[in-house]
């Protein structure tokens, strides 16, 4: 239906395709119309009115994000009157925003800051009353600060449209409008899954992660502690962006070196425990297959997904793997196997995890994951926080000499690396499960069908003549769609991977903010981060978890075999249905 039409922008004719908005057409022609509430992954809000343009013959300005181009349309993007209106609009936003850029978490990464600079606001005309709300510090993971909110509605939209959690909504009217969870409940009691996507898309600091950097700096200076750190696969694929690099650089070596310079005594790799997770999870899957256990089995690595499952899919608890996440497995091994090895009281260990994820902060606190009265991980910091700490400590991250991770919890296979991308856990699990089940080595180990950013991916393979159907979903919205299918047709799949964030961990809520020329959750950036991990996998000689010699050693020396009683004690757990306040229970489930 699309056809070529002619439009005029600022008095010059251009030929464009019909069926697109003014903004889309202008973007392609190199006119970057200023914008704020617009995000290509989300529905059109039309709220900020920053992207207004003048169209000849129209009485009012039109929002270029929503208005379609027509043949012969004459558009002006930069008239004096329009510039002033746009500037006044941004001024109105600033008039109800704290003037504290220099002490703000988003200083330098704030979209409003950039926008107001580009508007050329030199004087302020309309200052008056400002809003005052308390910060919501109740959650372990996400801080909500309505004072900084400019009501663009991106958080509301991502939480409902992409994540299907519907925790956030605008409340009250007019000047008193504020974004909040239902009944203004504290975040800790709301249905928030702590995925942190609101932080990712927020143009200002209305949503930020709960920061533990100061606490961590203090503890790193405590001589009585043995400081141990692990970092997630996708941290290395993204942290370079915080230092100005393009997405897709694997900064593993620099990160290890920087962490040591920060004061950590041991630097381990969550990729190692990803391998460990595969050993346990693949075995669990095979056991379910062989002993007619509950199928489909669903992965349990993503902490946001686990909270989502407990709240909205408690009927599927028995389908969820009992494996802890790789972070918690590593934490458990640090405070048992490793402390035995170095003969130290586990209580003297400071176990830190650098994660691409905000929900891991929540996970680290879960009582279900404790063993011997211990928490496997004491402090979780995000990629962003880690990058800030490195900068704050004056470490020249880009010029630093790369270093290697420590044994015995560091060495990883390629399977562990790809955990960070959607479909990676499934791919890694199949590599091992196939061999454990058939006794043969899977030759073609790259499963193209479950890679990439398609919302729900399906594949099937044969193991000894038996068809195994698998599915992968990333982003909780896609997950919900997939699980609704499973509820209707439980026999449809055998094994399902779910990641809470779009793109998997590479798109986690703790990853670096988008740069000045990029947008949050840009698909190209996500793909580049994922590619860095797939390249890492391809560059390794060992690409199957069960071939990791340190994993084999760990089983020999400590765990005996997958699913052993020791494994169960340290590496497995059980979840329980949660009924957060304000949720009307579904009678069929509760």
């Amino acid at each position: 239906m699309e056809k070529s039409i002619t439009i005029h922008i600022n008095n010059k004719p251009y030929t464009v395709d019909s069926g697109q908005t003014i903004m889309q057409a202008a973007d392609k022609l190199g006119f970057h119309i200023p914008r704020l509430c617009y995000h290509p992954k989300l529905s059109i809000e039309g709220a900020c009115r920053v992207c207004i343009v003048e169209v000849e013959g129209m009485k009012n300005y039109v929002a270029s994000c929503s208005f379609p181009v027509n043949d012969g349309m004459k558009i002006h993007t930069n008239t004096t009157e329009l510039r002033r209106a746009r500037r006044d609009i941004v001024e109105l936003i600033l008039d109800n925003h704290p003037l504290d850029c220099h002490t703000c978490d988003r200083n330098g990464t704030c979209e409003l800051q950039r926008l107001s600079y580009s508007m050329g606001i030199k004087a302020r005309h309309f200052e008056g009353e400002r809003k005052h709300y308390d910060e919501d510090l109740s959650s372990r993971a996400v801080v909500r600060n309505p004072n900084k909110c400019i009501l663009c509605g991106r958080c509301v939209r991502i939480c409902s449209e992409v994540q299907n959690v519907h925790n956030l909504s605008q409340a009250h009217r007019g000047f008193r409008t504020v974004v909040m969870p239902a009944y203004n409940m504290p975040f800790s009691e709301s249905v928030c899954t702590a995925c942190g996507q609101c932080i990712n898309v927020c143009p200002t600091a209305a949503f930020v992660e709960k920061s533990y950097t100061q606490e961590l700096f203090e503890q790193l200076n405590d001589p009585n502690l043995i400081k141990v750190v692990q970092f997630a696969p996708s941290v290395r694929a993204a942290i370079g962006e915080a230092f100005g690099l393009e997405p897709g650089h694997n900064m593993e070596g620099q990160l290890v070196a920087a962490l040591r310079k920060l004061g950590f005594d041991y630097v381990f790799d969550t990729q190692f425990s990803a391998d460990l997770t595969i050993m346990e999870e693949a075995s669990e899957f095979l056991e379910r297959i062989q002993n007619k256990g509950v199928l489909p089995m669903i992965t349990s690595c993503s902490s946001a997904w686990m909270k989502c499952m407990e709240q909205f899919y408690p009927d599927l608890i028995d389908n969820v793997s009992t494996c802890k996440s790789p972070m918690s497995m590593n934490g458990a091994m640090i405070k048992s196997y490793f402390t035995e090895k170095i003969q130290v009281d586990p209580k003297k260990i400071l176990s830190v995890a650098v994660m691409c994820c905000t929900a891991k902060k929540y996970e680290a606190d879960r009582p279900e994951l404790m063993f011997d009265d211990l928490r496997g991980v004491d402090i979780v910091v995000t990629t962003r926080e880690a990058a800030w700490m490195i900068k704050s400590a004056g470490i020249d991250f880009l010029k630093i000499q790369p270093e290697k991770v420590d044994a015995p919890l560091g060495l990883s296979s390629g399977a562990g690396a790809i955990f960070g991308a959607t479909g990676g856990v499934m791919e890694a699990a199949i590599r091992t499960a196939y061999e454990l089940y058939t006794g043969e080595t899977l030759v073609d180990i790259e499963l193209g069908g479950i890679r990439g950013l398609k919302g729900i991916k399906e594949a099937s393979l044969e193991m000894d003549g038996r068809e195994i159907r698998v599915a992968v979903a990333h982003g909780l919205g896609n997950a919900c769609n997939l699980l609704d299918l499973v509820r209707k047709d439980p026999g449809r799949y055998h094994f399902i991977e779910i990641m809470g964030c779009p793109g998997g961990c590479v798109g986690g809520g703790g990853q670096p903010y988008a740069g000045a020329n990029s947008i949050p959750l840009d698909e190209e950036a996500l793909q580049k981060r994922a590619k860095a991990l797939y390249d890492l996998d391809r560059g390794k000689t060992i690409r199957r978890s069960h071939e990791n010699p340190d994993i084999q050693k760990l089983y020999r020396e400590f765990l005996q075999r997958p699913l052993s009683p020791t494994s169960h004690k340290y590496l497995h757990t059980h979840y329980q249905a949660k009924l957060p306040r304000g949720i009307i229970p579904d009678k069929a489930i509760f």
Partner: protein
Amino acid sequence: MRAKSILTLCDGPTCIHKNSRVIREALEAEICKHGLSEEVGIHLSGCLGMCSKGPILIINPGYTIYGGITVEDIPEIVQEHLVHRQPVARLVVQEDHLYNRFFRIFGDVDFFGRQMRIALRNCGIIDPESIDDYLSVRGYEALAKVLTGMSPREVIAEVKKAGLRGRGGAGFPTGLKWDITARETSDEKYVICNADEGDPGAFMDRSAIEGDPHTVLEGITIGGYAIGAVKGIVYIRAEYPLAIKRLEKAIAAARENGLLGNNILGSNFSFDIEIRLGAGAFVCGEETALIHSIEGRRGMPTPRPPYPSVKGLFGKPTLINNVETWANIPVIILDGGEWFSTVGTETSKGTKVFALAGKVHNTGLIEVPMGTTLREIIYDIGGGIPDGKKFKAVQTGGPSGGCLPEDYLDTQIDYESLAAAGSIMGSGGMIVIDEDSCMVNLAKFFLEFTQDESCGKCTPCRGGTKRMLEILTRITEGNGKEGDIEKLERLGNMIRKASLCGLGQSAPNPVLSTLKNFRHEYEEHIYQKKCRAGICSNLVTYEITEKCIGCGACRRVCPVNAIAGKRQEQHVINQETCIKCGQCFTTCKFDAIVKA
């Protein structure tokens, strides 16, 4: 005082062409000749829609319609009808248009006689809770006519021919809206009746539904047939319990009678209507916000396009019209689009309902042909300003309309004329303002409302109206500054052009229109610290004149002891202490205290 007889002469273009103006002169002369001037009143009306039989003269009481009269007939009419009270049978026209019944009962007084009731034709006539009453006044005959022999395209053509435009405010051509929705292909379509009347002081929709719910249902059902929908929804605010009750009763009765439900009146058309209650947010009268509200989401507008006629309720093509628009439909079907289009002006056809309020003798609900002037409404129907006060302005279109001063009194009521004058038709609020009102304070009042009811979604409306209100507040409190007027204009124009929905786009209207027409009052407030109406208390000083007899009444009521004076001597107000509460002013029996 009531005139004993009222003559209404059609002053529509056709009748003028047929010599009605000459007839009027002859009538006046003849009446004068018989010495009847005191007890006979002559009115002119806009087109009465009986052009083929013009010139038309209606005599009340009795609602006798004379048609095709000539100057030669005048002596006979005056002699026989007015003197002997015997109608001149040969000139009487038999009319059976639907709207006529109302005037048989009500048409003999100024207030009603100058109106023309199409949408409200049955309000005040029939028992709204009885479907029998509605059936007896040709109720549901339009629906039956449509189902018997009209295709959906023909129905739409008839509505187009009528020239009906949306009565919710924007005035979009109704037939075109139907046409666009009908052309969409979809497995499901919806029809919505917008009864979310939110303007303060407006009660057109409530009265229409309370007085004649079946008309609205019939209109909606015809709309459903025309666009191919099977489901209609009336979105009505929960604050209207009686209207809701009557609507529920009407829907039940219609279902019982096979007028809603499967196979209506034995045809193969099936349609049903349900009621959805709104919580009373002003913005939910905006169609996209209304749709969100029905869907169970927060009532906030979304950008258009896509329009609801393409992508509306639950993403399906949806036809939304307001109550008054729907109430016109059965008349258009039965009396014909062509007839309907004879009423009104070139661009605006038919009638418009207004809620007349404020400083006017006869407040109430009126329905007048488009083209009636503001002066006719305020002075002839409304009876003018009470207490001998001077007219200052009329505000049309609800809280987001504009205030028009005396110069605009001869503006005709139609969409374009009102817009050109700087106001809007809106849904039909009309507030008359006399000299006792302060225009700055009035603008502030309306802005307070829209600011409060802003949904908070878009920046200009949320932030801009707040800042405008702050500036207005400081002006009325005597703290206005140089440059405030310019700031109001700058913000107002930006909000008007940049807001997301109609609510925001029209929110600055009261301020911009008063700035245009009453700028001197703003300037007085800011530069001379003076409020000529004496409304803005910070800008008023009370003084005691020599009329004071020293009774001491003011001294005793003053809550801050600001008044001093000996018995039987002129008292004095200490301006430092005075809090300008005005108690002394109202207490003084001798008009000795003045506001300055």
